[in-house]
């Protein structure tokens, strides 16, 4: 196993605080950069993310060329607030409307490729309470400065917000440690060097994203890593320590559903690579039980595991970006 990658390709955001240098390099390389925020009912945090990014990385240092919000159909005020603070806002269902409609984070990320202009795209979750522009410039630093790096993933010390107003200093990453890391250790030991493979913040060159499929739901982060690894190898990856990320805690049941979708994605990839051959059909329902009036009632949640193909295979995309499949 090549373990030199972690030493060579792991950075701290503070290595990229010279924003003037990033602007100069970006201009020299004639790059366009898009920030995409996938949303679903994020009215509490979306304005702060847009405002800080716009002020620091558009107005003061012209690193970002656009901020795009792709929304899954929020029922709160997310889209209005985002528009009010100057982002380009789209409903995912309105992008490429002739295609079948799906709902999920992966769907938003995939469709963002069609509406954004950037050569580099930064994806940030929209629920980051302690948002700071380092979340974007930290991810962009290696992509702008090093030509061999094509995809950058964030990792953190991640405190979880508990109760109404208290913060405890450790926690998070349960699905990573209980599911992803054992799977990677079993099948792709090199990938264990990626410290937080499920972090929702990453950036990469368009040529990478347009050539990989996107699961529409939770599996998107895992599939991205596996597909990029398979096509381009580990050396195009980098990871950046972005310090702290304060996020909403999820209960164990929600993490169970997330794990189900990730396993689905993982197994699909392994089958494709010929690493396993399952003789029996895999089901697509996550079953959890509730105790209701002394009776155990199943709570069945269907996870279809739909995937979008590499967007370069979509004719409208090829036409818009003058690409050949």
């Amino acid at each position, binding site marked *: 196993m090549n373990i030199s990658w972690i030493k060579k390709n792991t950075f701290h955001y503070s290595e990229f605080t010279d924003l003037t240098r990033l602007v100069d390099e970006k201009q020299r390389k004639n790059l366009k950069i898009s920030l995409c925020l996938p949303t679903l009912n994020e009215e*509490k*945090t979306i304005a*702060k993310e847009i*405002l*800080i990014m716009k002020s620091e990385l558009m*107005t003061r240092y012209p690193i970002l060329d656009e901020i795009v919000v792709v929304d899954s159909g929020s029922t709160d*005020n997310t889209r209005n607030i985002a528009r009010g603070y100057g982002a380009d806002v789209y409903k995912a269902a309105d992008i490429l409307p002739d295609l079948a409609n799906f709902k999920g984070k992966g769907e938003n990320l995939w469709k963002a490729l069609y509406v954004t202009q950037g050569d580099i795209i930064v994806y940030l979750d929209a629920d980051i309470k*302690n948002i*700071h522009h380092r979340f974007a410039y930290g991810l962009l630093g290696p992509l702008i400065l090093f030509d061999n790096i094509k995809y950058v993933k964030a990792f953190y010390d991640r405190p979880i917000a508990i109760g109404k107003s208290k913060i405890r200093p450790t926690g998070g990453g349960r699905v990573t440690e209980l599911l992803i890391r054992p799977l990677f250790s079993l099948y792709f030991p090199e990938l264990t060097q990626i410290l937080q493979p499920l972090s929702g913040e990453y950036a990469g060159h368009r040529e990478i994203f347009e050539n990989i499929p996107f699961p529409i739901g939770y599996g998107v982060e895992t599939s991205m890593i596996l597909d990029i690894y398979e096509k381009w190898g580990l050396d195009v990856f980098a990871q950046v320590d972005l310090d702290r990320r304060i996020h909403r805690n999820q209960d164990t049941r929600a993490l169970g559903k997330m794990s189900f979708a990730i396993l689905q994605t993982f197994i699909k990839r392994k089958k494709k690579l010929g690493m396993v051959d399952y003789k029996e059909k895999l089901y697509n329902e996550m079953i959890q039980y509730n105790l209701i009036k002394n009776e155990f009632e199943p709570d069945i949640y269907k996870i279809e595991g739909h995937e979008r193909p590499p967007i370069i295979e979509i004719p409208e995309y090829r036409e818009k970006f003058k690409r050949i499949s």
Partner: protein
Amino acid sequence: MDNYIDKLPGFVDTIKSIEETIITNIVLMGQIPAPTFKEKRRANIFMERLAEFQVDECTTDGYRNPIGIIKGTSESKPPIFVVAHLDTVFSKDIDHYYSIQEKSITGAGIMDNSVGVGVLVSLPEIFRKLGLRFESDIVLAGVIQSLGKGNLRGIRHLLKTWATPIRGAVCIEAAELGRLNYYADGMIRCEVDCNISPVDGWEHKFKPNAILVINEVINQILKLRLPQKPRSRVIIGKNSGGFKHGVIAYDATLGFEIQSNSDKMVKSIFNSIKDIIEGTSHEYEVDLKLKTLSNIHAARIKFNHPLVKSSVAVMKKLDLTPVSGPSESELSIFLSRKIPAVTLGITRGVNYHQQNASVEIEPISKGIAQIIGVIMAIDSGVCDEHLLD
């Protein structure tokens, strides 16, 4: 003077055009916890932001108040101070992450004093955007240890050790837009601690209850006859004690302030309360300790001082109605050192000292234009020939 006054309404629009940067500064500063005596992290970020906005000098004084200096065009004019206190009343384990809505910002400490601090670090960029240069150096100071037991130590030290004369000062507070403070009452801030030994002593037939003892102290303070002239009052501000519903309280604390526009009266009321506490301590056979946390002398500039008159003119030009009252803040330290100063508010808000405090975004640009108007007034010389009484 009319020259700059007329420009102020136009300033509002220009300031609005960089509102994102101003709000970003408010949020980035305010989200760092800074309880009194633990302002170091916020002070560091304050310096970082000032350095990023390219002030001419960025440093700390001997007391670790962070300071940025924008050099003026004149070698001889004394500097103008613009200050905002960095500390807040919230401990560091309180959630300080702010939420921005369409028209408001919400979060712990936003009104006291994140907006003030964020605006202070934004001033270099705002001056640049407005194309403003001043004759005087502009000293931007985020002062530490201001609130409660901090006893305004930061500003006291800064002014005590500042080597040269100071031309005038503007103190910035988040709220309320329209406030114009130009006088400070005399004030003594005290705490009374009542402690009762949990071990039974021979002198107590019945175990005294610390909360009830403090209650007796409060009742006696309320019986004091306070004069209307000099205007005087005692504010009972804090009270805590006990640890369990079904157990007599062994300890209790009372926090209060004596305020008056006469230092003599403050002292006289203080002595009366001291007598009350000694008497109660003796009669209840309990340990009552009176601690003085802060002491400020009454000081003022007159309403017809050119700084006040100019401030009123600036506010009226921006359709603001000035509302005046005493202020026991950085202002009092400037005034007590005979430095003309005013305190101004930037915006409007609700839930002042609560975790869900919230400020309006829309008025902020006008609040800043007003501050700049007053700085321009001082720079034009309104404080130069009028010594304080």
